[in-house]
């Protein structure tokens, strides 16, 4: 056995991070794809129905490596191991089969993609969705009662998490050490050379925010309208929660009378009868005056309706809306018009609240949005929370 023609090596792979780096690039491309499809993502039903912890399935088109491919679905394939298999036996549904293998061929082909779809959480979405949104008219309040935390990467230390290795600094350390030892080369990286990036927690004073959602729950607000309102509120709440540690929510349902309801009832219960918006505005004003002095809280009020209000109530509604604007950082009005008759003439409805508000109220803190179908939810969200939100309406 003198010609032992093999060797065993064990190298230091601790700095080998190409896989992770390209993985990050892949995730970045997923985000780009999502960004390109935000309108779809935002109105995704499964998402809204979730509690925020559920993983999200998203239509991601950019992640396949496209090549000239045969259509496996239209080809006969060979399977194995079915001793008892007979002609005509079913092997399971096509989608069930797709979860089985991991290689090529028909069942395995979709696996990678599906996996990445489900790997995405609502938190990941927040980051993308809210990246360029900001709270308008944010003012420092006299008594900041809470603080917001942020992580700032600004320190490098000899200990830390393996995933936070600072490659460049580590190499510099190694070179430095070698040079001190009289070896002007990069010869081996020792444990002592490792440098890790680490973060500081920065606490900045933040006032708490109060959100008052108001919705017309009269008969004309059907399930489709409520769904749209719900998905918009879902994102608005999530957005505010990313900006404030403490967000207080109030839900006011109104027909001709207003009352405070639970979040669940707000989005599900429907009632019959007419509509008097002023009742909700009045309720909101009382709530604010009783509990939330505007110099201590950032107040946000949003009203959703289908645009139909008792004509006799309009002057009072406008007057109260002006009072709300004196107290709130932002007041939003979203008019949800998913009925087919509105789709026929989408831009001008002379008798709706939207046109009334647009004629009567010109206030920097007042934002309106017209939402005709689910795809406009995202535009409405941006109308409410985009820094340059002076654009009137989102429709």
């Amino acid at each position: 056995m003198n010609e032992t023609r093999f060797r065993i090596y064990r190298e230091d792979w601790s700095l080998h991070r190409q896989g992770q780096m390209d993985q990050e690039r892949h995730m970045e491309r997923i985000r780009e794809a999502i960004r390109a499809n935000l309108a779809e993502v935002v109105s995704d039903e499964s998402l809204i129905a979730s509690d925020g912890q559920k993983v999200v399935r998203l239509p991601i088109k950019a992640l396949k490596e496209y090549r000239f491919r045969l259509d496996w679905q239209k080809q006969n394939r060979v399977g194995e191991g079915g001793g008892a298999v007979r002609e005509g036996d079913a092997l399971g549904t096509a989608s069930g089969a797709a979860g089985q293998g991991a290689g090529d061929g028909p069942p395995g082909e979709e696996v990678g993609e599906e996996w990445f779809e489900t790997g995405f959480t609502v938190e990941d979405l927040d980051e993308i969705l809210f990246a360029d949104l900001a709270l308008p008219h944010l003012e420092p309040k006299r008594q900041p009662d809470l603080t917001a935390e942020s992580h700032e990467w600004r320190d490098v230390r000899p200990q830390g998490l393996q995933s936070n290795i600072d490659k460049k600094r580590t190499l510099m350390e190694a070179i430095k050490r070698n040079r001190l030892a009289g070896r002007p080369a990069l010869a081996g990286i020792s444990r002592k050379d490792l440098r890790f990036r680490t973060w500081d927690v920065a606490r900045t004073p933040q006032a708490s925010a109060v959100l008052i959602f108001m919705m017309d729950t009269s008969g004309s607000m059907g399930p489709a309208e409520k769904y749209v309102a719900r998905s918009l509120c879902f994102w608005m709440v999530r957005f505010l929660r990313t900006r404030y540690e403490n967000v207080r929510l109030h839900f006011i349902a109104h027909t001709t009378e207003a009352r405070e309801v639970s979040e669940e009832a707000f989005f599900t219960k429907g009632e019959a009868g007419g509509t008097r918006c002023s009742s909700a505005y009045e309720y909101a004003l009382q709530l604010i005056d009783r509990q939330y002095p505007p110099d201590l809280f950032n107040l946000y009020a949003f009203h959703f309706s289908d645009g139909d209000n008792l004509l006799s109530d309009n002057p009072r509604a406008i007057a109260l809306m002006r009072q709300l604007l004196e107290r709130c950082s932002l007041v939003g009005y979203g008019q949800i018009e998913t009925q087919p008759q509105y789709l026929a003439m989408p831009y001008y409805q002379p008798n709706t609240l939207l046109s009334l508000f647009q004629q009567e109220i010109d206030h920097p803190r007042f934002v309106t949005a017209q939402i005709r179908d689910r795809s406009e939810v995202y535009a409405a969200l941006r109308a409410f929370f985009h820094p340059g939100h002076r654009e009137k309406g989102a429709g």
Partner: protein
Amino acid sequence: MAVVRRQPVSDQDLERLARAIEEIVGHARAMGLDFFEMRYEICPPDVLYTFGAYGMPTRFSHWSFGKAYHLLKSQADLGITRIYELVINADPCHAFLLESNSLLENMMVAAHVLAHADFFKNNWRFRETNRQMIHAMSAFAERVRQYERRVGRERVERFLDAGLAVAEQVDPFPSTRPDPRRDLPRFLLDHASGLEEWQRDILSSLREEALYFRPQMETKILNEGWASLWHARIMRHLDLTPAESLEFARLHAAVLAPHPFQLNPYRLGYHLLESIEARYGRDALFEARTVETDLSLVRNHLTPELCEELGLYVYAKQGGRWQVQDTGWEAVRDALVRQLENCGLPYIYAEDDNYQRRGELYLRHGYDGVELDVTHLHQALRHVHHIWGRPVHLETVCDGRRTLYTCDGENVESRAL
């Protein structure tokens, strides 16, 4: 099965492994295996997943490798799959063993990769592969980094996306019976007029890489079958404790277990080779290793008995369900041959570089009964257009009708011919 994270290999373990490998190498040589000098590296799982995803220790960076890495790693974390080893066709032959493997696992893997090295050295399809490809690929990776610095990462990535989309359409026999229409990357290099130098380098390097990997795609069943057959025989020659023997029996059975819906190449290859030796003797076994590919192996050696023993069947999609179509051995053989033909890739012929005298590219799919995936087709044409720079056409058959797809850069339109 629970995932057990073992301690990294100690120096003592390493020494035992070295002694075991020495013995394994001796047995392998005595049994007639003829391999390159071996370079075994023990590495942590993450590193092995990286090599598995990239197919090489150092290769250019691309998001698709990151995706593959992520997938491998997650499947391993979940216990769905586990990579035990990776072996690179090179001289000396590089084999990577997982540090978290047990000693016995690493012994089996060491034997397994010796047979792979023998296969790389002796199978005819590997005769012309570049055994120094490790260096070529790592040099290319460095050039890609330079291009990224020079022209920007986005542009390089966009071109890599396009290049990777066509690189597979390489002519696997460029030196023996080259067909200029059959080598799409070569055709583009020869005829695309607007390519910058860095783009030409990327396309031609991707083509070289595709040519290097091609024989491995063509011999998956044969090569894995060969390695499984020899790891089993070598391990039986070792003096294992009863516990080790049991562990080995379990591992070996897992390697050769049938997969639902798809073929386990280890299993099919192992049994095909065993049956060749049983019928024609040891010389025939070694000859099969030298002269066959998966396609010819199945065509020449799949017998009715094997077909039944392995429980092979033909299945297809009927409505929303996968349904067994046929269990007859000829039907199975023919379906399998068709599945392996051209590594399961469609034939795309570059017919004309000046279509309608407007410098447009005309491609034709060599349709033989299986249609193209239309979603892929649309995006792939956009990729070709990115390289070609002018409208690109592809003639194929869609829903039974001859159809021409045309990509003008933005849109892809189709019309019946």
